[in-house]
């Protein structure tokens, strides 16, 4: 091989391996890319519209069920020059929100709860939003206008069938992959089956389907390996599967049985020939698995469940995996060997998946915790940069570990960043990180906490106590008594 030819081959290989910049007009899976960064970046060069604080509440007529997913995670996309969020929830309605104009552009009511994030893709030259609903249907609507493109019933109904659990779609080159679990309670028809479907993105035609579990399953994530599109999906019962879906029919490449329940979806490194896949479990361990072979590379324990999806990002040239746990902590592990870079305790169980973005102050992640706060942390050190009070749950009690509530996503334009989060208090928050935000709550350091106790001590002994002791008038028990 001549030197010039070798250089050309090398250049081509480098180009092929380089991460392709994400299309801001699409949101191809649950947390955007396979790395689950969940961030939409304004493409420029035009200046991005100003995103201001917005609290969107949709009050439907439905009765709350304890622990339900009030809002699913949103999907973000730039649609006709507007930054838009698409989000559904227990209200059975998918809302298309214009983040700049602070208005709802369109909405679509389905016949079931929307439990997971929609996906946004391009089909026939237009942007289309795809989502599944507990009514067993998949919907495709024009992202700009809300006009129906197609809808497809995945499973035929029966009078005894419970609400379906439909995953987030995964979009790739004209095909939508989506999983659906249904449970028919009738003894005669008793069936619990989760199928993975491949549908034509333009027409909704089902190309193939295959059983992947007899229990609920996560949302699929995918990426190319050896120029063939691979898809990973985890069953609640812990079975992680890898499929090659480039051919006519899906081919299962490998399976990996995790010994405990799995709630979240896998996150996969978006580049490299031997990418790692990360998946947490109810045992509280984060598993790093070779996405090509299904071999476990490393495993790290948190103090409690890891319910949600991990998030991958490059920080200072090193790939880092971020994950939240019910032990109140957010963890950052070095992706290649699982070395713990930092862990940060927050005020409550970290139920959300993190989203990663880059601020002017450096890389950051946003997570939500069961102390009703959304935190923005420095991705390098785990320091809390800011936090927001995002409201108490609409139900009195929180059944932990039974539901995946919405996770935050981020919209970025230059130095401007806004976090979008559907909170379990029934409100979707759009929170710009710069400037004044009404919900900002200052988390206190350990030293501030002790100072707070000292201040209370001083106030009590110096003000309250003298007033109480020497207030004129009879003390309790010295007034009139009934005899």
């Amino acid at each position, binding site marked *: 091989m001549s030197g010039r030819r070798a250089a050309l081959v090398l250049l081509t290989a480098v180009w092929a391996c380089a991460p392709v910049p994400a299309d801001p007009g699409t949101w191809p899976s649950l947390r955007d890319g396979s790395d689950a960064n969940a961030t939409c970046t304004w493409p420029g060069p035009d200046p991005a519209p100003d995103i201001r604080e917005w609290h969107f509440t949709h009050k439907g*007529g439905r009765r709350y069920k304890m622990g339900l997913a009030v809002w699913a995670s949103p999907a973000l996309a730039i649609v006709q020059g507007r930054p838009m969020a698409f989000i559904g929830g227990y209200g059975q309605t998918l809302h298309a929100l214009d983040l700049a104009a602070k208005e709802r552009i369109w909405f679509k009511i389905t016949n079931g709860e929307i439990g997971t994030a929609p996906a946004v893709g391009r089909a026939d030259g237009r942007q289309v939003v795809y989502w599944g609903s507990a009514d067993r249907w998949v919907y495709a609507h024009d992202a700009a206008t809300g006009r129906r493109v197609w809808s497809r019933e995945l499973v035929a109904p029966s009078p005894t069938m419970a609400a379906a659990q439909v995953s987030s779609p995964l979009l790739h080159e004209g095909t939508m992959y989506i999983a659906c679990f249904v449970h028919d309670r009738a003894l005669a028809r008793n069936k619990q089956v989760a199928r993975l479907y491949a549908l034509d993105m333009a027409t909704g035609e089902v190309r193939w389907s295959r059983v992947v579990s007899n229990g609920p399953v996560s949302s699929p994530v995918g990426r190319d390996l050896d120029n063939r599109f691979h898809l990973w999906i985890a069953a609640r019962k812990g079975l992680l599967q890898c499929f090659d879906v480039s051919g006519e029919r899906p081919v299962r490449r490998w399976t990996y049985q995790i010994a405990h329940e799995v709630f979240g979806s896998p996150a996969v490194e978006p580049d490299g020939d031997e990418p790692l896949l990360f998946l947490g479990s109810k045992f509280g361990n984060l598993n790093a698995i070779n996405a090509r072979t299904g071999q476990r590379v490393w495993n790290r324990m948190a103090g409690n469940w890891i319910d949600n999806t991990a998030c991958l990002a490059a920080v200072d040239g090193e790939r880092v995996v971020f994950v939240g746990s019910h032990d109140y902590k957010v963890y950052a592990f070095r992706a290649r060997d699982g070395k713990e870079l930092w862990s940060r305790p927050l*005020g409550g169980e970290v139920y959300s998946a993190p989203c990663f973005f880059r601020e002017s102050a450096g890389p950051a992640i946003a997570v939500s915790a069961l102390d009703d*706060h959304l935190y923005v942390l420095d991705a390098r050190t785990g320091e809390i940069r800011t*936090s927001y009070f995002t409201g108490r749950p609409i139900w009195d009690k929180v*059944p932990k570990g039974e539901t995946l509530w919405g996770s935050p996503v981020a919209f970025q334009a230059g130095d401007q960043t806004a976090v979008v989060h559907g909170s379990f208090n029934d409100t979707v928050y759009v929170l710009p990180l710069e400037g004044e935000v009404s919900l900002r709550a200052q988390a206190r350091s350990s030293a501030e906490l002790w100072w707070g106790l000292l201040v209370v001590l001083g106030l*009590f*002994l110096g003000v309250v106590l003298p007033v*109480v*002791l020497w207030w004129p008038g009879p003390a309790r*028990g010295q007034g009139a008594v009934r005899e």
Partner: protein
Amino acid sequence: MIERIEAALAGASSNVKLMENALTGLEGSYVELLTILALGLLAVIPIVVPQHRRQVYRHLNQVFGICVFVFVVFTCLGVFGMIRNFHRGLNEIGRENVIALYYCSVPVTVLVTSMIFGPMFCGWICPTGALQEFSGMLLRGWHRARKRARYPFSWLMLGTTMAVAGVFLLWMKRLADTRTFFVEDASIYWSEVLILILFLLVWRMGAWDRRLRRLRVVSLAIILIAAVAQLKVTSPVHFGFSKVYDPASILATVMVVLAALVVPNVWCRYLCPWREAIAWAARHSVRHLETDPDKCTRCGTCNDVCNVDAIDRGRVEPRECHMCMKCVDACPTEAISIHDRWPHKEQSAERAGS
């Protein structure tokens, strides 16, 4: 070791609501209303129980109250939770009418039953009061001896108070190192003030006991202002009524129980804002205690048995009385008795007299 204890607490906390999970699994059954039903039943029980076993039934009622409100159904019986839920119930009118009814009716039920039957909620139902009373039983003899001696300085009390303060400080150190706090984590401040009060009581309980009870007005004012201004202040004994595993609230609850070892019902005496509201509602209650001065021998038995020092040689202080009726049951001459004073009967009697 500490991590093991924390893990055990977290595990226990996640399991205590098993009954609730089972009940709420009944979709559309509105099991939340069981709280109102339970509250109503618990309020009626003091009226119907036989007199000779009244205290046994009262303790059963308290245990049942703890089980119902901590382990089974939803609600916060703290004043802040009730005010917050009342506000929330108003917002739900028109959408979730049953839930609105539920949220609004919990505080109304407590206050109305207090207006009619007196402050029986405190003595017969309140889970926080019950936990304190059960805790105080461990040192009942010591408490009575101190009371008879008019609360002199006691090294034992000082040592116990320092031990309680030590638990608080160590626990706080652990929390400060392992979790993030916000301004609204106010339960730690309630615990701090409770411990400060204990220290004051070590030396000055005899002199300042009555004056310190004015603190209840201050705490009620703080909590009302916080609720109206929608400040995010956690209820001091939030833990029992919440499914969220909240270490600060667990700490506050444990502090209340430990402090009650040193001074019986210390939370109810000096800080409970709900106690102040109930005392206000029960000012003109139909049911009340009366002392027959001709029968009273000033023996002091009633004072001995009263957990909150609401009675002194037969003189019942209605603003402090919890209506536990221990004094009625303990009085050797039956000088203290329960009376129902219905306004229309009094008017009829007045007319007949005139």
